[in-house]
């Protein structure tokens, strides 16, 4: 192996790849080989760095220099200046938005300071397509120590003591789940990894699989050893081609190294993994629905019990955990239950990965200790709200969660606090909204999603959500009444109580939480027929202020439907019956003479 003195890490996450990071890597390799430096400088395509807002990202080690928004054209300069002459390229460095100073060492970035990376420990550090790099960072050491030094019971005890809870949303204690599956008697058992991340706006699991697939494989093998299964299945979204590809490569490499297959490390333990593809159904995140989907059926949930731990895939005991949960297992085995349990809050241990998105400056993937406050996440790590706007709400838990207002900014994030606040942890999507977002529309948006994804098996979810959506539609179109608000609440409660699975039981949460926290906004829609944030088109009214209008005719000329009339150099007028509320006049007016009301 060549003795590299420098490493160029190019982000190969989906976001950065969409911005030509592959070409950046290629340009680096070509330029370096032209200069005869290929043996000294290694170019690695890593998993997601997390700082997607600033992508494509290139990090140069050992200097730990973090370059942002790099284009393929910048590569020559980076090679000639940084690598050859040792001078950092100032214009591509990350600039701290507070101090306006460029950051020369990634350690100085606020974005990373408050993060603790356990599940994401290798993302952005190693080449996910090279098993040796994973092994060099203690990879497969946990599997080795379990197989050769610990009994399954001892291993389960460690997981139980660590306090790890399922990261897919439910928060069920992982060790306990393993123990129950271990106790089920059967000739065949299965380990299933749920990688069917369907929560819109969330990409935690995908980034782990893209950036560190071996950690999931290792953990699945450990789980197999603990529960007595020799077969693992990864149920993954077909919409994640890059993650599928990297996982396939990783499985192949693990087999070649004897870390999957028969008699692993001479322990007599056999374990192998197969990939199963999802086909785009949110409900398949639910364990029983997922299992049916793997069996080639419609992904409809069934009543629990029996739990998959007793009767799951093909009627055999099956342990289902999500990607992030698995990614936490190897470090817990390596560093001990006490180490993990020391991080987090009383009932929620360890860290949580969140996909931070929406109206926030630093969109990206972050991992923070449980108990971190929303304020720290949104302002310190997230860099605050985009365009200097006002924070309005943060939505956690995706379509099953709720919106939290600024009153909750100082609430420590953990499973129980979020539930108490009317939302939930969910899989980790965190969407930030500002004052221009209409909460009624947001509730409607999530309902649209649920409607689309409801499997239709049980009536409360299939019909109830449809009715909820109709009421919301009515309200956003200006036809709602005050009674509708009561109906929303009543119907929501029924759907929650009577639905069969988690999807239906949580689907009214966005409606209920916005009703609780933004009741005034609902009232404005039904009483005065206005939308305070100006999002509901049907409720908008564009008017021209006579005293400000100069009669420049710009709006008149741009109106697509000819709703504006008036003489040159005298105030114009909008005919409300013709106006389609497209907002073009508002955007075009240079004199702020048009108001939305």
């Amino acid at each position, binding site marked *: 192996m060549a003795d590299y003195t420098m490493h160029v890490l190019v982000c190969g996450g989906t*976001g950065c790849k969409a*911005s030509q990071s592959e070409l950046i890597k290629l340009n680096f390799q070509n330029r370096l080989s032209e200069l005869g430096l290929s043996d000294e400088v290694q170019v690695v395509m890593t998993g997601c760095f997390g700082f997607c*807002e600033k992508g494509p990202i290139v990090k140069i080690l050992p200097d730990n220099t973090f370059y942002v928004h790099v284009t393929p054209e910048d590569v020559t300069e980076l090679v000639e200046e940084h690598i050859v002459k040792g001078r950092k390229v100032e214009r591509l460095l990350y600039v701290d938005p507070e101090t306006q100073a460029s950051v020369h060492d990634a350690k100085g970035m606020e974005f990373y300071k408050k993060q603790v990376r356990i599940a994401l420990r290798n993302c952005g550090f190693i080449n996910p397509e090279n098993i040796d790099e994973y092994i060099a960072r203690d990879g497969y050491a946990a599997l080795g120590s379990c197989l050769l030094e610990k009994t399954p019971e001892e291993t389960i005890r460690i997981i139980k003591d660590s306090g790890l809870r399922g990261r897919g949303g439910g928060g069920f204690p992982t060790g306990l789940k393993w123990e129950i599956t271990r106790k089920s008697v059967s000739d065949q058992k299965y380990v299933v990894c749920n990688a069917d991340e*369907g929560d*819109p706006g969330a990409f935690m699991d995908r980034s782990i699989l893209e950036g560190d697939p071996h950690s999931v494989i290792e953990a699945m093998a450990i789980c197999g050893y603990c529960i007595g299964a020799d077969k693992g299945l990864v149920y993954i979204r077909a919409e994640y081609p890059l993650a599928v590809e990297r996982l396939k490569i990783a499985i192949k490499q693990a087999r070649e190294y004897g870390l999957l297959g028969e008699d692993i490390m001479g322990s007599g333990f056999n374990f192998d993994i197969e990939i199963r593809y999802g086909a785009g159904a949110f409900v398949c995140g639910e364990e029983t629905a997922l299992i049916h989907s793997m069996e*080639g059926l419609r992904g409809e949930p069934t009543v629990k019990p029996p739990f998959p731990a007793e009767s799951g895939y093909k009627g055999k005991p099956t342990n289902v955990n999500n990607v992030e949960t698995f990614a936490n297992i190897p470090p817990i085995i390596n560093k001990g239950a006490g180490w993990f349990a020391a991080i987090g809050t009383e009932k929620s241990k360890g860290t949580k990965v969140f996909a931070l998105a929406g109206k926030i400056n630093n969109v990206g993937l972050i991992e923070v200790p449980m108990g971190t406050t929303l304020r720290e996440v949104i302002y310190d790590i997230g860099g605050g709200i985009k365009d200097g706007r006002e924070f309005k709400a943060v939505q956690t838990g995706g379509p099953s969660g709720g919106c939290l207002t600024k009153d909750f900014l100082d609430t420590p994030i953990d499973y129980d606090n979020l539930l108490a606040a009317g939302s939930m942890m969910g899989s980790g999507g965190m969407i930030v909204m500002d004052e221009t977002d209409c909460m009624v529309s*947001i509730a409607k948006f999530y309902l649209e999603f649920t409607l689309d994804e409801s499997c239709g098996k049980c009536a409360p979810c299939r019909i109830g959500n449809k009715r909820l959506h109709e009421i919301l539609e009515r309200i956003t179109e200006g036809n709602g009444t005050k009674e509708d608000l009561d109906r929303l609440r009543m119907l929501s409660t029924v759907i929650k109580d009577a639905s069969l699975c988690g999807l239906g039981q949580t689907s009214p949460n966005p409606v209920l939480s916005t009703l609780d926290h933004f009741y005034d906004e609902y009232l404005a829609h039904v009483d005065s027929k206005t939308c305070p944030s100006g999002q509901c088109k049907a409720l908008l009214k564009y008017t021209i202020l006579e005293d400000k209008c100069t009669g420049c005719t710009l709006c008149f000329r741009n109106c697509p439907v000819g709703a504006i009339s008036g003489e040159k150099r005298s105030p114009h007028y909008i005919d409300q019956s013709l106006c389609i509320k497209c907002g073009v006049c508002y955007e075009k007016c240079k004199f702020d003479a048009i108001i939305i009301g």
Partner: protein
Amino acid sequence: MPKIKLAEKAVDLIREICTKFNNDEGELINVLHQVQSKLGYLPAEVQEVIARELNISVAKVYGVVTFYSFFTMLPKGQHPISVCMGTACYVRGAEQVLSEIKRQLSIEVGETTPDGRFSLSCLRCVGACGLAPVVMVGEKVYGRVSPQQVHKIIAEYKEGCAAEAKTA
């Protein structure tokens, strides 16, 4: 839906895929994935062949095909356009982008333009939330798309078609 006649070659291909999965009904979803990736879509006639091969009812195949959003019974356009409607894209204006695309192509979501060039669909989160709102044309990802840019993006492919037509 008009009846289509499957080419012999297509039938053989489906049979081959089914055999690869041991004609096991539990592998239905995997079979559908592979057939769709080869044929582009899964019309009723294709489903009939699959049902026969796996020895299950056509209703069962149809039930699965229509359950999952990834499977389609309609052919896609030459340049399939997908607008991400994940929450991150939604709050950053994906809806306005979508309506602009609908307006310019005069088609609704799930439809294909009469010339077969473009089809339009929505998808839930590409996972490139840092680039929101995101539009995909084929495999190419366009980030931070504004309604004003829609015309330019579509034009790229229209010109492409025109150029192809000239050289052909």
